[in-house]
């Protein structure tokens, strides 16, 4: 029963995420309103047939704004998670492959980053980089790599001892070639799983930063900035924060299930 259940959640969560991604890309075709078109006469309306999620304090259609917000949220999540995973993979591979004092030093640095809450480091980085899209991209890419580095190092240490690596070495292959062609392909599975977990972490971090007013600035808007706007008027108009919040929640949930499902799929030992 568990296997079929797992396949179902995997299918539903990846289908949902595909839908959100497509909706983000095709936002202009899915709504007749623009995200910035104001209509003061129709401000702060509840959900209706014309505005399925109501309107905000300037009369802008919330559904359109959430669709366009998905662009910023998903794009920031994908890009920063990809960068973080790349940095972490290279870092971890170097540490694991070279070993010795290089490894010891590199891992001490990781330990230092590891103990601190990444949101705290991201906020400190935002102070230096300045708020806005570039700052947030760099800050989130720079905080996400630590877990990845630990994971890849541990995997490289393991695969390094395999016979085929010894054979490659005996055949005269250099370090780059061995790591690139004989080790990394073998650990691609766990790397993909951790990418699936890194994307929602990044999306959530962006939304927190934006909610606090430290993240994206106008004209960019993400689910986090929408929630921040919504929070101010929440007492009288709860739909303004509920809809962007739920959009983020469902996306997070789908990523969690996708990550869990992928991990079980790729690692038969956790199947029971």
């Amino acid at each position: 029963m568990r296997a079929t259940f797992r396949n179902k959640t995997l299918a539903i969560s990846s289908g949902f995420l595909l839908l959100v991604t497509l909706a983000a890309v095709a936002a202009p075709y899915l709504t007749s309103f623009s995200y910035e078109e104001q209509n003061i006469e129709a401000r702060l309306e509840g959900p209706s047939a014309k505005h399925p999620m109501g309107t905000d304090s300037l009369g802008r259609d919330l559904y359109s704004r959430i669709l366009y917000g998905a662009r910023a949220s998903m794009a920031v999540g994908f890009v920063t998670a990809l960068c973080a995973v790349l940095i972490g993979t290279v870092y971890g591979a170097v540490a694991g492959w070279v070993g010795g004092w290089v490894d010891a030093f590199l891992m001490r640095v990781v330990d230092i980053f590891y103990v601190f809450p990444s949101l705290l480091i991201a906020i400190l980085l935002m102070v230096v980089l300045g708020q806005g899209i570039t700052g947030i991209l760099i800050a989130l890419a720079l905080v996400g790599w630590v877990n990845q580095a630990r994971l890849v190092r541990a995997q490289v240490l393991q695969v390094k001892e395999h016979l085929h690596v010894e054979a490659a070495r005996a055949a005269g292959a250099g370090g780059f070639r061995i790591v690139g062609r004989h080790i990394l392909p073998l650990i691609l599975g766990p790397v993909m799983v951790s990418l699936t977990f890194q994307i929602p972490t990044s999306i959530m971090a962006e939304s927190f930063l934006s909610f606090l007013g430290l993240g994206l600035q106008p004209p960019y808007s993400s689910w986090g900035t929408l929630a921040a706007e919504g929070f101010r008027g929440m007492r009288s108009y709860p739909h303004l924060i509920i809809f962007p919040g739920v959009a983020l929640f469902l996306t997070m949930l789908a990523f969690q299930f996708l990550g869990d499902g992928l991990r079980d799929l790729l690692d038969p030992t956790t199947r029971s």
Partner: protein
Amino acid sequence: MLTYALKRLALAVPTMLALMLITFVVMKAVPGGPFDDEKALPPDVKAAIEKSYHFDEPVLRQFARYVSGALSGDLGPSYRYAGSRTVNEVIAESFPVSAQLGLVALAFAMSAGIPLGVLAARHRGGALDFSAMFLAIAGVSLPSYLVASVLILVFSLWLGWLPPALWEDWRSMVLPAVTLGLRPLAMVARLTRASLLETLHSDYVRTAEAKGLGARSILFKHALKNALIPVVTLLGPLVAATVAGSFVVEMIFAIPGMGKHFVSAVIDRDYTLIMGLTLVYGVLVIGANLAVDLVYGWIDPRMRAQT
């Protein structure tokens, strides 16, 4: 055990120094300063301000001054509250508030998370397990501002049971503590479940079963004690999660704690306050991790042998 403890402590010191160095360098690298105004200050006024904050000294000496100040417990003046309040005073006021909130949140997370994990493990594969684990996944997927909004709407605005903000009596503590504790709760429940499942498959539990002990006695007298050991290691990540969560939660509920001060210090570019608060957070997180290492080394002698 003593050498192990000293080794662990010795590892914590460079981590702390590295944190100080990084925040110091970061704050020095920031473009623009707290005294950059729309209108340029007269040069002599600017020089006087810079002198009073020791900006005219070489950077290395500024760092040495900062470290020695921090070691003797003086974190310097706050830029924003220039003249009226020091960083020490801001921290002295806000630390007890945040500490109280954090402790209540963690107590909530533990007291609900462990039973939830145990229930899930006992009814493995059943509906109870499924709902408990769904709750745990939801706990890490829910943005805290959504949780806070729903709680405020239901318990403050509709039912009128609890205040929607501020920090006065125990009633004002409930909603922020629940919001802040939800993510830790999910972490605790997941780990408790996994660890208990593993323990329940171990040989000594089978022995207990073989000699005819009841399921209840095995679970509570034998399995749970060992299963909860890995949960101890969560303390470090839990403190980190609570610190990170407090930024949003204290802003939402208008709680005068360190998280709220930290966010407004960042917006106001109050560098000394940012550095001071980061330092306190550093001590907290490093301290929690050190405590985990020590407790774990004490419970499980194998840990001592490894280092």
